[in-house]
């Protein structure tokens, strides 16, 4: 009878892969991801305000060339063209009135007035058309600050090269304290990458769990279970469904991974060409343990969702208990920050060894700071044991539940189902 598992698994897999909705959902995810990550900068770059010029009113007369000569490499950010305005002998109020009109007409982003007083005090004001989104304010601030220091030193008679040497940029980076050079990745990029993977596990476990729940409910509501259980063991039905939908999930994830490799390959190549330091943004353990905890988590939650599906007849009824199962995924998401702050503390260690939290929390800990090997091993052993226990328990509920129509079971009834042989 074991052979029935294969056709069931194949049916579960193909009947989902061969639907339009599968491909639409598969395509939507990267499209949305692209939309949210790539589009905003593009839109920002394309937006008019960023290319509108900024007027520098140089009332000192010889400041602008110093500003224009600021080393491009020294300041990051999208630059807007700078326009020189020498004031034309007008009083300051008249200049401001004139430029305010131009700003309100949308011709310029704004203006900065430099006179002897501002040079002395250093109190610069950017009169911006849209102060709240003054794009480029960062580079403008840096450029102005550097050029003013340079200008002041020049006036004091310091030689150009000496000034350059003095004001060369000072930056502040963050790096992991380790003697393993491979692990000295840039902290922030690694964090976002890990965080993304943890979020992915969270969403994937819910998504595919609900698939399993729906699948069981559908079989119950269209009464196909009657035909199925006469031919195959309920256990095979359950296992076939869990494996089939798991295969659907892996297919989807594989498509996404290939897709993202494809579209990011040119950028990765460019980055590699510039500098090798950027490369491993995420540590190797994070990549190795991703499939491990995803698969373990999937089996645990898919089994639970299959059991819930077997107990009820409609989505609405099942939703309540499904919500409870989902809570076990939400709770770890709520303690992400404390765990990130102290990944090897008591709270993090304890919670990450609780099997229902393990896929998210232990994985999170691995991505941040590798926990002791024994803890990783123990978490896997506990999870496997829990999965086996759940499969045993749920299969008992499942074989009775799928044949029960009508009212929702009560707790005592469920306990009785467990005792049926």
């Amino acid at each position: 009878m074991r052979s029935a598992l294969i056709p069931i698994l194949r049916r579960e897999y193909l009947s989902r892969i061969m639907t339009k909705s599968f491909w639409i959902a598969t395509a939507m995810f990267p499209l949305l991801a692209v939309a949210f990550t790539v589009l905003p900068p593009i839109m920002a770059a394309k937006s008019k305000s960023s290319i509108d010029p900024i007027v520098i009113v140089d009332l000192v007369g010889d400041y602008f060339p110093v500003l224009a000569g600021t080393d491009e490499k020294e300041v990051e950010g999208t630059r807007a063209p700078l326009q020189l305005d020498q004031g034309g002998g007008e009083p300051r109020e008249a200049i401001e009135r004139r430029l305010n009109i131009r700003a309100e007409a949308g011709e310029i982003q704004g203006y900065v007035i430099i006179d002897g007083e501002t040079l002395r005090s250093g109190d610069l004001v950017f009169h911006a058309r849209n102060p709240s989104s003054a794009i480029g304010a960062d580079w403008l601030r840096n450029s102005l600050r550097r050029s003013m220091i340079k200008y002041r030193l020049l006036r004091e008679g310091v030689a150009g090269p000496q000034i350059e040497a003095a004001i060369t940029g000072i930056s502040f980076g963050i790096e992991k304290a380790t003697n393993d050079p491979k692990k000295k990745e840039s902290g922030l990029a690694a964090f976002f990458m890990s965080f993304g993977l943890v979020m992915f596990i969270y969403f994937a476990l819910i998504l595919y769990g609900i698939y399993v729940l729906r699948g069981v409910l559908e079989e119950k509501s269209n009464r196909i279970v009657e035909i199925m259980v006469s031919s195959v063991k309920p256990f095979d039905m359950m296992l076939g469904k869990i494996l089939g939908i798991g295969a659907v999930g892996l297919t989807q994830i594989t498509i996404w991974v290939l897709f993202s490799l494809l579209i990011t390959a040119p950028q990765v190549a460019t980055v590699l060409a510039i500098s090798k330091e950027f490369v491993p943004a995420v540590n190797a353990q994070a990549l190795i343990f991703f499939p491990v905890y995803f698969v373990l988590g999937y089996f645990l939650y898919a089994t639970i969702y299959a059991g819930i599906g077997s107990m009820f007849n409609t989505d609405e009824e099942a939703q309540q208990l499904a919500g409870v199962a989902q809570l076990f995924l939400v709770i770890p998401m709520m303690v992400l920050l404390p765990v990130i702050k102290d990944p090897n503390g008591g709270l993090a260690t304890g919670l990450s060894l609780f099997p229902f939290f393990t896929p998210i929390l232990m994985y999170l800990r691995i991505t941040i700071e590798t926990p002791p090997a024994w803890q990783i091993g123990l978490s896997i052993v506990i999870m496997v044991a829990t999965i086996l226990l759940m499969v045993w328990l749920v299969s008992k509920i499942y074989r009775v539940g799928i044949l029960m129509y009508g009212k929702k079971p009560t707790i005592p009834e469920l306990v009785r189902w467990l005792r049926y042989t």
Partner: protein
Amino acid sequence: MTSPSEAIRLVDVTKRYGEFTAVDAISFDVSSGTVFGLLGPNGAGKTTTIRMIMNIIAPDSGSISVLGRSSREASAQVIGYLPEERGLYRRMKVIDHVAFLGEIKGLSRAVARRRADDWLERFGLIEWRTKKVEELSKGMQQKLQFIGCVIHDPQILILDEPFTGLDPVNARALKDLLLEFRQQGKTLVISTHIMEQAEKLCDEIALINRARIVLHGSLPRIRREYSRNRLTIRGGGSLERLATLEGVDGVWHRNGETEVELADGLAPGEFLRRATMVCDIESAVPHEASLDEIFVRIVDPTALSSSPIEGDS
């Protein structure tokens, strides 16, 4: 082929759900090559019994054997089962679905697809083979379910209320097909609460009521037994007065006819001689008890006692 004479044998089979006893110490045999009717009112325990034969649920006590083997090893491969609650995967293609039903019964993929095509051809569904199941009419879907039940060429067919929802043409076609299966030597178990169908098809029956077997055996013998000492009488005058005659156990009026049950030892000739003295008798024939009548008489005796005019003996 040396198959045992009993295709299915149940001995003291009991199944309880908590306090509720769904099947209570049931025993019966289904002889090979016969059409066996598992009869009883709704909720009597027929479906539970069938599910235990199919090894979908396990009995609390008692034993079930199918073709001489424990039902735990045998059921799915040798039995084709058409459940009462019927369903299909609505979004699968017809050919894929039928082949899938064959595959889960242990057929190889290639064989399952070939047989699926043969059966679709036979049921006139071949031009629908690449359509989705949900596009088919209800009658066509029932045909698919039936194909699913016979595609692995089982020795035994168990059909739970097979005629439900069929129009007269399809019901007739199904009946012919079932008789053809019997000709091939297959054993058929038909569960139904509609007695007329059982009457036309069955060689043997078991009647289940309130979790127990209340009647079991060959249909002609049972009918003979229940027809014994009974006469159907047509006539005029006051037929009610028949009840007053000595040796008459009961009188019923049904559909313009009057039925009389005679006490043991009262010969029909003697009864008629006495009867003609109290009323006009046009005809008197030995009563042929219908299964329906037997069923009602056993399952709900009160339904009958309301209509008869009791004898005063």
